[in-house]
């Protein structure tokens, strides 16, 4: 039971410290840290952040690999009233610098090599983890480990409320660069309350953090564990051997993953069969549909020893949205369709037609989400915010325009019993390996090679990845085969691995255009599937 009301992320910490200060909060490699450690070190870093001029509402960059320090950094920023911005370690310099500029990050906490590779940005202050970098792009730079050793935490001197900005979650944007979803303290806390409620998390849980912390669903293991007063085990490697070792060595009780993770885990099926994972209370999937064969295999392997399987669906703009509890997982099947279940607690999801009227059962429309996890909007992007965050069309006339709901861009239908099924996308978004990407961002990367004249990226279905990226391009000049090598190389060097197209097809003629002169993505992707 919580002792203090839960308004902010650090209220969740305060409750867990109060309940059991000596409880292990985080396991990072061979080191265990208690809730008391988390309280003390985040207090010390909070004081240092304030000392370096961080004020309420400021953005603090977290450029760290998943680590104890990354957890401390998030809580320190929260306590200082600032918003933390977790930057995906897979991003390359160009995207990292874009994010730093986009939300005006003045103070950062980062791994030394990551800070050292930045070229065109300068922080007021930077805290480095590791050896002192030769050059730090900052006015002042400090050794993070020394700061964390300080016992002189300032206590919580900043008044923070639930409507304050808590974090910005960057997701792929249609302008060719990522866009930030501004997420309030209330969104964070509600998300933790809701998820820990339906996953029934308790202090006895030992939760594996196997997803990136910059991803809403990956951050969720941290926030739910913090709320439950459970133990969070940080896992960087997702190689099958390491996953199996971690599950056993730490007696993991809960794992949340995206479809490719289960594919990796299933490579270890034989050893799981020989020695069942008896402590594993649940697994939860998000970020795409698990191939039925893998889902069946997970059931066969895990259910006999008591593991429950949850299927979840969410979008960064509203943190988490629906889930299918273990007893209902049968509703999702090749015959019945991709069932995403019902709304998470304290939330409502609806399917509406283009006119904003609720669709009848069986009728396909756009999925919209209302509830306390609806984020504040896109950072610095009013136009995109207006498009995705709209007045609730089903509100009573007297309250029309008061409450904002999220338009997901996902097409869905509802059955007679009120369960929702995803049927596709209203736009051309690509979903691969759990990452949602706009084709424009992939196209921007391709054109950036200097070799490509026009580019068209689209997703093609792939059972393991969700979708694979395929790109059709025309060349400025030169030979096709050599060019494809060059384009690939550019993508590999300048983009995160999940954004590199699996296939690059060179078109001799101009790419087909729509009546309005835009590249006709539909015709191109249909021609590809019909080959």
């Amino acid at each position, binding site marked *: 039971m919580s002792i203090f009301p839960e308004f902010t992320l650090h209220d969740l910490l305060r409750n867990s410290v109060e309940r059991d200060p000596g409880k292990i909060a985080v396991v990072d490699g061979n080191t265990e840290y208690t809730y008391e450690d988390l309280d003390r070190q985040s207090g010390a870093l909070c004081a240092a952040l304030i000392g370096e001029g961080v004020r309420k509402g400021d953005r603090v960059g977290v450029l760290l*690999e998943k680590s104890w320090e990354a957890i401390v950094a998030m809580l320190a920023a929260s306590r200082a009233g600032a918003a933390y911005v977790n930057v995906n370690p897979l991003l390359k310099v160009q995207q990292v610098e874009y994010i730093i500029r986009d939300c005006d990050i003045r103070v950062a906490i980062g791994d030394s*090599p990551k800070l050292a590779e930045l070229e065109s940005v300068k922080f007021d202050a930077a805290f480095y983890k590791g050896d002192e970098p030769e050059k730090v792009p900052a006015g002042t730079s400090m050794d993070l480990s020394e700061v964390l050793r300080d016992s002189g935490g300032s206590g919580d001197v900043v008044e923070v409320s639930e409507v304050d900005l808590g974090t910005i979650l960057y997701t792929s944007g249609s302008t060719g660069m990522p866009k930030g979803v501004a997420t309030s303290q209330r969104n964070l806390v509600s998300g933790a309350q809701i998820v820990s409620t339906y996953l029934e998390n308790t202090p006895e849980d030992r939760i594996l953090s196997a997803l990136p912390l910059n991803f809403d669903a990956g951050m969720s293991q941290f926030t739910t564990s913090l709320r439950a007063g459970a133990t969070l085990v940080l896992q960087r490697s997702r*190689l099958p051997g*390491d996953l199996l070792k971690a599950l056993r060595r730490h007696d993991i009780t809960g794992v949340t993953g995206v479809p*490719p993770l289960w594919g990796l885990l299933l*490579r270890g099926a034989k*050893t799981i069969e020989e020695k069942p994972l008896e402590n594993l209370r649940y697994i939860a999937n998000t970020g795409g549909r698990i191939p039925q064969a893998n889902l069946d295999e997970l059931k066969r392997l895990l259910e006999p020893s008591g593991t429950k399987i949850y299927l979840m669906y969410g979008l960064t703009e509203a943190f988490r949205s629906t889930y299918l509890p273990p007893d209902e997982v049968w509703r999702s099947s090749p015959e019945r369709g991709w069932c995403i279940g019902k709304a998470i607690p304290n939330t409502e999801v609806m399917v509406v037609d283009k006119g904003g009227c609720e669709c009848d059962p069986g009728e396909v429309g756009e999925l919209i989400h209302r509830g306390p996890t609806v984020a504040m909007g896109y950072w610095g992007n009013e136009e995109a915010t207006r498009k995705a965050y709209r007045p609730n069309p089903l509100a009573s006339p007297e309250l029309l325009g008061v409450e904002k709901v999220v338009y997901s861009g996902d097409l869905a239908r509802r059955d007679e019993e009120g369960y929702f099924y995803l049927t596709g996308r209203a736009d051309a978004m690509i979903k691969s390996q759990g990452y949602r990407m706009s084709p424009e961002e992939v196209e921007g990367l391709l054109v950036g090679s200097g070799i490509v004249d026009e580019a068209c990226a689209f997703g093609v279905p792939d059972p393991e990845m969700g979708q694979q990226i395929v790109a059709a391009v025309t060349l400025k000049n030169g030979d096709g085969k050599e060019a494809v090598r060059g384009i690939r190389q550019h993508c590999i*060097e300048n983009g995160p*691995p*999940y954004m590199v197209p699996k296939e690059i097809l060179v078109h001799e003629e101009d790419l087909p255009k729509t009546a309005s002169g835009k590249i006709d993505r539909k015709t191109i992707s249909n021609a590809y599937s019909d080959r």
Partner: protein
Amino acid sequence: MDISTDNAAAEIRTWLQENVTGDWEIPDDYPLIESGVLTSLQTVELVMFMEDKFGISVEDEELDEENFESVKSIAGLVASKTA
């Protein structure tokens, strides 16, 4: 087939350049997994390449950070399986 560590390392470096790093030639002791250069899915692809190229088989338990830490350690794994 007996494959020396050097030969294996050269093949692995080439694969990494073609599929992961582009022009940059990775030092043999560079921490591939820890630095995030090699993702888990890419590692599985690399294993498939190794199994095909060197005619070896890599067990699931061997697919871990220790064996795939660097070009050097991966080459060592290949050599130990073909000796």
